[in-house]
């Protein structure tokens, strides 16, 4: 239990320390030590727990009171922001939440006794590992990133102390969410992540960021409102505030709060129809996008959905949930094809993968939950790597466009290598995301073939947009200057560690599955799926094959292979050199190569509207069938 409390309190304490120290080098030192401590703490927790679900009593009236005070303070701050920027929807949601809270504290709360406020099981350990390890690495990266960010954005105010304060506070809140058993506590941490996200998106303080930040805030507050409603309902009707008891003993009364919490989860994990905030949030500095909008905060949404899904099992609401997930996966994957902004592509792909997790949670069989957890793990690693690579190229190329990444492998070989690993990690054969998609497909077929068909179409789209991006990167042209000499060591360290992790997670995935995930699934269902041994061997053969062939092959082609003659590219014979040719009337022209975006088929506007309408319909159905 000490480890858990350490993990929740320590980042918050560090964030305050970082806020108060004015010296940059001292802050950096503290940040590094804190990150090492966090990583060590999560790994220690994994060894300490031993796979059991352990619940802790932590009764202290002062904690409750402090939380209530902080919650009210948060709400007041949000109200202030709402009035200052005249976003009355925000004000409305906050007031409604406040009213519900006050009612809850005054009349309902005294009647309930919470036995276990904190808990730890394998699933929360997995999430803690993601938050602790990947979160810390991203914070390290941010140290280098923010330096350059302020050099390039002279117009924005240098608030980096606040920036790091928010980043570490956010880590603390995330640990809080995954370890709390008390719904009220989860809600408290939930609101902190909402606020952190709001402030971090707004960091640049220009009109676009403020607009995006409020969009995120509004939608997340809507989720928060649903969450408070769920808390009130659960206490009044089911008579409990504890997550595990609500699921286990809630019976028919658990369904409504579960659906409301799932609704909150949908807003947080940016599923259709709530996806717009995540794509807009891409204006935030890239480490923020990596930390909040790909690997951790949005994971809180799917975490809570997976957690609550047993309460919904067998109800039409669960089916609706899986359809929302499936729809999100399909539509977001399609839209990603038409995007040329790298961060937008990453955002849509994040939404799509979270959709898959939600679909798995909605299906709720042991196979589905197993693959959902795998998806969360693999996605967190590969996607954060991708974001961090894009963060570097964004500064060095002064653009987020994929179309400007021509010849990246010549200009930034190491960043490109990391990017290629990241992209392969997202969709190619021996890597994690594909393993989990495979497991997902098997889970879907047994449940409902429609979902399998959706997955088939969605993965085809995924294949297209990732490969064309990868193709853009690996295009080769000689005579370009290396532009990556000025990348800071902070960024290098993170990139290297995450690249090795992306590969490493795939190699140790059988161990990961049998040591952490399967016991959890067995605890939930009694039986656990596991992969065919033969298939694992084949995957490992592919993996090892790639790991040996790629470096050896590259070295061979770089140094040993001398038996060739270099000629120009074929340009109808009218070459001037490799990329210039003589056009009509002898004018010299450049062969400029651009990718396909298939806008006629997959335009964002149209698909988004269709997806939005259908998803709103499904959400109404989900809540409607439960309440009626």
């Amino acid at each position: 239990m000490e480890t858990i409390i350490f993990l929740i309190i320590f980042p918050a304490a560090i964030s305050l320390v970082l806020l108060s120290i004015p010296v940059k080098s001292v802050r950096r030192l503290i940040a590094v030590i804190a990150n090492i401590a966090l990583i060590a703490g999560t790994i220690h927790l994994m060894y300490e727990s031993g796979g059991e679900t352990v619940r802790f009593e932590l009764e202290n009236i002062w904690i409750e009171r402090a939380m209530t005070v902080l919650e009210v303070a948060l709400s007041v701050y949000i109200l202030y922001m709402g009035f200052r920027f005249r976003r009355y929807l925000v004000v409305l949601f906050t007031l409604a939440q406040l009213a519900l809270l006050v009612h809850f504290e005054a009349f309902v709360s005294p009647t309930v006794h919470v036995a276990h406020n904190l808990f730890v099981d394998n699933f929360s350990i997995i999430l803690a590992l993601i938050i602790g390890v990947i979160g810390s690495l991203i914070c390290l990266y941010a140290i280098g990133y923010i330096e350059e960010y302020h050099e390039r954005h002279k117009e924005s105010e240098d608030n980096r102390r606040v920036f790091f304060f928010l980043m570490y506070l956010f880590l603390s809140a995330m640990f809080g969410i995954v370890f709390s058993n008390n719904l009220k506590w989860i809600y408290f941490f939930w609101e902190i992540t909402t606020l952190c996200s709001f402030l971090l998106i707004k960091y640049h303080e220009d009109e676009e960021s403020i607009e995006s930040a409020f969009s995120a805030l509004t939608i997340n507050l809507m989720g928060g409102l649903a969450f408070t409603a769920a808390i009130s309902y659960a206490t009044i009707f089911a008579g409990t505030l504890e997550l595990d008891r609500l699921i286990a003993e809630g019976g028919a009364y658990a369904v409504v709060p579960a659906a409301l919490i799932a609704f909150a989860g949908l807003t947080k994990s940016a599923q259709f129809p709530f996806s717009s905030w995540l794509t807009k949030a891409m204006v935030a500095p890239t480490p923020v996008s990596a930390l909040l909008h790909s690997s951790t905060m949005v994971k809180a949404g799917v975490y809570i959905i997976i957690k609550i899904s047993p309460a919904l099992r067998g109800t039409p609401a669960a089916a609706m949930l899986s359809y929302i997930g499936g729809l999100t996966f399909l539509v977001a994957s399609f839209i990603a094809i038409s995007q040329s902004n790298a961060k937008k592509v990453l955002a849509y792909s994040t939404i799509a993968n979270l959709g898959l997790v939600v679909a798995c949670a909605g299906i709720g069989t042991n196979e589905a939950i197993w693959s959902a957890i795998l998806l969360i793990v693999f996605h967190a690693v590969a996607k954060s790597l991708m974001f961090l690579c894009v963060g570097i190229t964004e500064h060095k190329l002064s653009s987020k466009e994929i179309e400007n990444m021509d010849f990246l492998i010549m200009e930034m070989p190491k960043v490109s290598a990391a990017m290629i690993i990241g992209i392969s990690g997202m969709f190619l054969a021996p890597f994690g995301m594909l393993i989990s998609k495979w497991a997902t497909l098997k889970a879907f077929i047994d449940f409902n073939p429609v979902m399998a068909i959706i997955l088939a179409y969605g993965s085809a789209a995924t294949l297209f947009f990732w490969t064309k991006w990868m193709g853009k990167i690996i295009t080769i042209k000689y005579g370009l200057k290396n532009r990556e000499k000025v990348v800071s060591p902070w960024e290098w360290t993170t990139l290297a560690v995450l690249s090795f992790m992306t590969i490493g997670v795939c190699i140790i995935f059988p161990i990961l599955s049998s040591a952490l995930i399967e016991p959890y699934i067995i605890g939930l269902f009694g039986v656990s799926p596991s992969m065919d041994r033969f298939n694992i061997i084949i995957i490992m053969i592919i993996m090892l094959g790639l790991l040996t062939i790629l470096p050896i092959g590259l070295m061979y082609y770089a140094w040993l292979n001398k038996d060739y003659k270099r000629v120009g590219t074929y340009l109808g014979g009218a070459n001037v050199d490799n990329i210039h040719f003589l056009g009509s009337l002898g004018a010299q022209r450049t062969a400029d190569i651009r990718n396909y975006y298939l806008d006629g088929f997959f335009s964002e506007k149209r698909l988004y509207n269709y997806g939005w309408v259908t998803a709103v319909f499904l959400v109404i159905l989900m809540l409607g069938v439960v309440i009626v």
Partner: protein
Amino acid sequence: MTPIDYYIHLDNIYLKAVVYVLLAPILGGLLAGVDRKISARLQGRIGPPIIQPFYDVFKLFRKEKIIVNKFQNFNVNLFFVFMVFTGSLFFLGGDLLLVIFALTLAGVFLALAGFSVNSPYCHIGAERELIQMMSYDPMIILVAVGMYQVTGTFRVDAIAMYDEPLIIYLPGVFLGYLHILTIKLRKSPFDLAMSAHAHQELVSGLKTEFSGSTLALIEIGHWYENVLLLGIIYLFFAFNSLVGLAAMLILYFFEIIIDNTYARFKWELTFKSTWLVTALFGAANIIILYYSMQP
């Protein structure tokens, strides 16, 4: 007991893989030769000898190695290695989904080879190859899904030994597969990416900048792939090996006829028609099958 039966009932999976690796290029090359001969006869020509594809490949291995950049051939080699690996995985009786994913991996390497050269023709070829992959990918997954629904397993060896004819349960899936087979065999009307017949439009597409032994590898990789694709046809008729053999040959002949009677489609039409066929035949078949198999 036909040789095919004998092969399926072999217990030693290594032997199976070795037989495939050795025999597939021979069979694939002969098929390509027969293909060219029949096409010629359909056009009223005499046509090249049946072993012409082997002459071509051996010649290509003797040509000088010319390249645009040092690394362009690497991806093609990876494509070849993974294509052979994929085929072996299928013929030693592995997991059908895994076969499909490995096939995708090989395809991605081929497309990346096209991208890496920085030549306009290669690039267009690679983009079209990708569009083709996106077009056929859903259907090929649905083939595996359908077979799983009927037989309850993804293992190729178990599907091949299934007693009842799969074609009865999966007629729609089979039609959908025939549609994408035309794409995979790179036959007209879907020979968008690297057809020799499209040279007015895009030179040789994806393989424009690849010559000599690398081109030969693309060709041999394609033979391996063709044998694998015919193997999937066999699975639909696996209840009787003679029927299966006949089906493979007849359908290959059918593809040749299609090849000779259609003009090339645009990529838009290719993409639209394939996804539509996948939905109308493949997806519908699978949904109907699901509900008819419910107790």
